[in-house]
């Protein structure tokens, strides 16, 4: 007993990382239990941004739900609109004109690029790269936002994709502007890769850090780049093609190790693939109407419908139940940000405090979607 007492006693300390912390992407709390610098337990606590969107949607007509979905994942509003519109279309059997489908693809892929840009920039910011990569990434994001402003008139919450198509046709100046952007975007991605990808500090910070094993990735319901970095080739655009994605030629980047570096690189490659898709969609863009003529108040028959799409963060699903009224009876969102967090504990435990923020950033959540 005496011998045991002579050993140095240590005591784990508890740190609340957040709700206000420079790298928690909003108001999010990680309750870390530390042994020195090593994390031995972690519990994510959230809900600080809970606005009960699902309840709000139940009190609005189907068209009015769309501006509210904008506010969930505010970095990729277009795809939120898309998912919600697809669920409503499924519920009410609304056909979508072909041109609208192409426009939706263009918008969704541009959204993916802009969202990944922001994610990569924030990831580097969390590694301590003092905002330089973030500024470079935001430079491109601004251009995409300019394109979105051109078509929808807003810069963040677009409310552009509607049930039955899109709210209005693209203006004539959009197509040359979009071509110009996708022509120069690969050059910018090259620039990022030159800046970042071979950087030894970045590689040693990310390789082997925050490994999400294959089985755990599937079991914990991860989706999007997080799932694909773990070596699972599951992209709804390929496996369950919606819209007109089966008409385009693109690859789905898949990692092998499931670590932070793979997640980083998968996003990097996805940007290139998205540029390819946008180019093909612009080339094939057919003429025609962009919206089905719908009344302002859509009244679907009773029943339920589930639609899912692949957003920048993963599988975004909308489950809607209609009771035959003008408002959805139940409006459930399968939020990829929330569900990707499920395996956060397993990914972080055993790593250092400094890795915690990097791993957390590599999941790329948006708190508006986690809490809704």
């Amino acid at each position, binding site marked *: 007993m005496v011998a045991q007492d002579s050993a140095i006693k240590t005591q784990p300390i508890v740190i609340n990382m957040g709700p206000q912390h420079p790298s928690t992407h909003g108001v999010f709390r990680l309750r870390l239990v530390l042994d020195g610098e090593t994390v031995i337990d972690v519990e994510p606590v959230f809900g600080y941004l809970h606005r009960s969107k699902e309840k709000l949607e139940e009190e609005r007509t189907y068209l009015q739900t769309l501006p509210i979905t904008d506010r969930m994942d505010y970095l990729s509003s277009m795809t939120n609109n898309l998912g919600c519109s697809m669920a409503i279309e499924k519920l009410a059997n609304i056909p979508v004109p072909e041109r609208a489908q192409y426009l939706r693809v263009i918008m969704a892929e541009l959204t993916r690029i802009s969202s990944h840009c922001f994610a990569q920039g924030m990831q580097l910011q969390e590694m301590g790269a003092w905002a330089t990569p973030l500024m470079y990434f935001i430079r491109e994001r601004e251009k995409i936002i300019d394109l979105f402003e051109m078509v929808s008139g807003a810069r963040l919450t677009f409310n552009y994709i509607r049930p039955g198509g899109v709210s209005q046709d693209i203006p004539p100046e959009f197509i040359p502007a979009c071509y110009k952007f996708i022509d120069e975007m690969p050059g910018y991605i090259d620039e990022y890769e030159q800046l970042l990808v071979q950087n030894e500090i970045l590689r040693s910070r990310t390789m082997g850090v925050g490994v999400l094993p294959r089985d755990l990735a599937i*079991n914990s319901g991860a989706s999007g780049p997080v799932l694909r970095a773990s070596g699972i080739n599951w992209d709804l655009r390929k496996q369950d093609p919606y819209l007109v994605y089966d008409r385009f030629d693109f690859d789905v980047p898949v990692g092998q190790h499931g670590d932070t570096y793979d997640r980083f690189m998968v996003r990097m490659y996805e940007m290139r693939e998205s540029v390819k898709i946008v180019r093909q969609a612009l080339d094939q863009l057919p003429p025609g109407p962009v919206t089905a003529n719908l009344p302002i108040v859509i009244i679907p028959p009773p029943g339920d419908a589930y639609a899912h799409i692949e957003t920048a963060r993963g599988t975004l699903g909308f489950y809607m139940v209609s009771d035959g009224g003008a408002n959805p009876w139940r409006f459930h969102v399968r939020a990829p940000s929330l569900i990707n967090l499920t395996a956060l504990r397993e990914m972080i435990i055993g790593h250092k405090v400094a890795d915690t923020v990097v791993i957390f950033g590599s999941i790329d959540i948006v708190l508006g979607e986690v809490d809704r």
Partner: protein
Amino acid sequence: MTKELDGLTAAEIVARSFPDGIVEVLASSIVIRTDLLAEVARYLHDTPGLSFNYLEGIASVDYIDYFEVVYNLVSLEENHSMVIKVQAYGREKPEVPSVVSIWKTADFQEREEYDLMGIVFTGHPNLKRIMLWEGFPGHPLRKDFLEFDHRNIAPAGD
């Protein structure tokens, strides 16, 4: 293209092992007996050829008479999907067996449904509120959750 198994096919699959487990067969989904949920889920997850290894989402609906919990299962290997539903009766403490031990992804989703809809998932290791704070009166997504009352939602001690 993900093959969506319709209600009849799904019923046939489940009935192979659980002949009396099906309550109702709907067009695109089946309603199974609530007490058998964990067993059915384990069967669907483990059986080769079905291998529903990916639980895409859990949603719950308040139908006033009863609560319905919807499980959207996907098999990443076979690339097919299936929707199973269970019903929970009673407004005080509707109970549904937890599937966390089968799909870890159910962890946060079941906590969310517990928090917002008030469905108790028996067997969940850490069933506590996730979005709202402990002691929040009521469950906001229920249809009988009435008015937005500032007096009710201020945290205790504030």
